[in-house]
């Protein structure tokens, strides 16, 4: 493909780039590297080359004057039934940090019906300005009226950075807006920073199923849009004394122009409380069967925690998808994560490695899970878990299944 340029004079034929290429797009022919049609111009090979023989020519820089007209960091505040979603508060925390670095203001966009209180909350989480669109049109999230109204605001006020939570609604909205604005959108960022030299937003995200990390830039288009998953960043502490400016805005289009209607909603009686669990006990391939999850459930119950699972355990049908932790499941950051019979594939680690304390229980001492663990037991989980339950029983003086309250009560007393 014509994307990657190879300087055949410089190339040593060392093959470092071939090892680095995630797509198998490079081969060695007559001691010189050649690129095939699998190349996606991802750039993984560029850094690997010891003699800088590889280059992806980029377009010339954007019109600096045009780009400098864009200022400020914006966050879309997601809400459900009048409550701000936690991920939006996390975004405000990040937005505040980025706005301070850029020496600019943080703006929150609150859309909904009877959501004025959320505008105030956004200020307490760090917003300087709030655009408040409070209208029956915004009762439930719908792509067309939400995107239409926000696009109007973005075109008028020209923010430099626009952040959203990577929830179902956030991804839906971000995808529609970026398409319309013809700007860059980076999904599921795990790191957001400002490049000291260029002032550009450095967007870092897992790619290739979480096996590699990529840093992405949006040089020539604005706003620079990014989504971030729940629990990736810490929840900031709200400051109720903060003052901010709230500006009311009207919907950009009338109900007749909206092609969708929400006709019902069934809230899931969530049986799996992974997202907010303080303790998660998770099982993987080593659990071996659906019945194998029984000791894991017992330990989770006793510690007042939730049961998690790796993708292999879910794909094997031993436990439902609602339990899945990882790149394609939930991202969690409990105080304690106990991984039982989980080898630690990168896609799993991507969903749990920010947990405060990680315990690994695995037969294989070389399992990668031990590399991210704080504590580990090399052994058979079916022997280790019952022993652990006995030890906790002695220390917490509760019976299995008695629940978190009892354990908590004992701990508070001690």
């Amino acid at each position: 493909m014509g994307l990657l340029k190879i300087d055949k004079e410089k190339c040593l034929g060392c093959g470092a780039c071939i090892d680095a290429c995630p797509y198998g797009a490079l081969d060695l022919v007559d001691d010189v590297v050649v690129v095939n049609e699998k190349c996606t111009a991802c750039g993984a090979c560029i850094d690997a080359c010891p003699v800088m023989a590889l280059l992806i020519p980029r377009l010339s820089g954007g019109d600096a004057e045009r780009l400098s007209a864009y200022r400020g960091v914006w966050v879309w505040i997601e809400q459900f039934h009048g409550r701000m979603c936690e991920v939006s508060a996390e975004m405000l925390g990040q937005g505040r940090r980025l706005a301070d670095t850029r020496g600019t203001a943080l703006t929150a966009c609150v859309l909904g019906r009877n959501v004025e209180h959320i505008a105030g909350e956004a200020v307490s989480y760090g917003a300087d300005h709030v655009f408040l669109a409070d209208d029956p049109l915004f009762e439930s999230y719908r792509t067309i009226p939400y995107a239409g109204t926000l696009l109007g605001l973005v075109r008028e006020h020209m923010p430099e950075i626009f952040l959203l939570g990577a929830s179902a609604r956030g991804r839906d909205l971000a995808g529609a807006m970026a398409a319309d604005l013809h700007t860059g959108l980076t999904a599921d960022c795990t790191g957001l920073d400002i490049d000291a030299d260029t002032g550009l937003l450095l967007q870092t995200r897992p790619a290739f199923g979480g096996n590699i990390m990529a840093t992405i830039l949006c040089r020539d288009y604005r706003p620079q849009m990014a989504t971030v998953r729940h629990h990736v960043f810490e929840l900031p502490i709200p400051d109720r004394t903060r003052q901010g400016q709230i500006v009311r805005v009207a919907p950009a289009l009338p109900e007749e122009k909206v092609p969708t209607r929400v006709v019902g909603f069934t809230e899931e009686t969530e049986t799996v409380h992974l997202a907010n669990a303080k303790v998660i006990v998770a099982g993987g391939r080593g659990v071996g069967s659906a019945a194998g999850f029984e000791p894991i459930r017992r330990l989770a119950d006793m510690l007042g925690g939730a049961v998690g699972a790796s993708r292999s355990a879910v794909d094997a049908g031993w436990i439902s998808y609602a339990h899945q932790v990882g790149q394609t499941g939930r991202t969690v950051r409990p105080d304690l994560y106990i991984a039982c019979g989980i080898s630690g594939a990168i896609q799993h680690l991507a969903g749990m490695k920010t947990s405060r304390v990680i315990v690994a229980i695995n037969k294989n001492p070389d399992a990668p899970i031990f590399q991210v663990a704080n504590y580990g037991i090399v052994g058979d989980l079916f022997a280790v878990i019952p022993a652990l339950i006995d030890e906790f029983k002695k220390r917490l003086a509760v019976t299995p299944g008695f629940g978190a309250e009892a354990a908590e009560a004992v701990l508070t007393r001690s």
Partner: protein
Amino acid sequence: MNIIVCLKQVPNTADVRIDPETNTLIREGIPNIVNPFDLYAIEEGVRLREEFGGRVTAISMGPPQAAEALREAMGMGVDEGILLSDRAFAGSDSWATSYTLALAIRKLGACDVVLCGKQAIDGDTGQVGPGIARQLGLTPLTYVFRIHSLDPEAGKIVVERLLEEGRELAEGNLPALLTVVKDINQPRAATLYDLRRSFRVGIRTWKASDLPGADPANLGLSGSPTQVVRIFSPPGRKGSPEIFSGERVEAAASLLADRLLAEHVL
């Protein structure tokens, strides 16, 4: 009914491992597959045709070998496969991909339903579906896990969408673009009869010059606002773990329980 399914051929990322010595991807023997979420879109498209009649066309953008993915879709009952393959498309990010797919869908004429998987397992962005809908002015209905009803006469579709808090019942006007989640159906296996048909009928290939209205500045790397500037291995956690040998299980469990209580995580 005119039904279009968009699909992507991806490396099976579930099989990818990192070589701990060199810290690089071990990609040997990793097969290319149809993006698993797209299989549900193909199945749903074929089911809609079985119920309402009409035609299902599968479209994919990618290198020549992505024709395999389209053949698999035809093996599952899709009527026709169109491959968008051109050097001009290379390096497309999610914006340029949705632009190019939208041009191809427009060329196919009026459609009733466009189906996409909720995301691809190699990029995991979930942005192409919503992008196509916006480019073509189709009603966007994302994260669909059941088509409740569809009335081509009245031009209405009612779907259940899977959101964080539960299931939303939403009604939309046709034509609509649906992105579908895993639970929507059980994709059928390709049949030998249909696979043979895919070889007989063949896969059509469209280049950039076959797409009316394609602006070269919006294609491939030139049309992609985002650029990957660095790729690296995921960072590990700092410090080495304290490992208790499991030879005497009770002793190890006892030590671990003490440590966890001292950490105040219980």
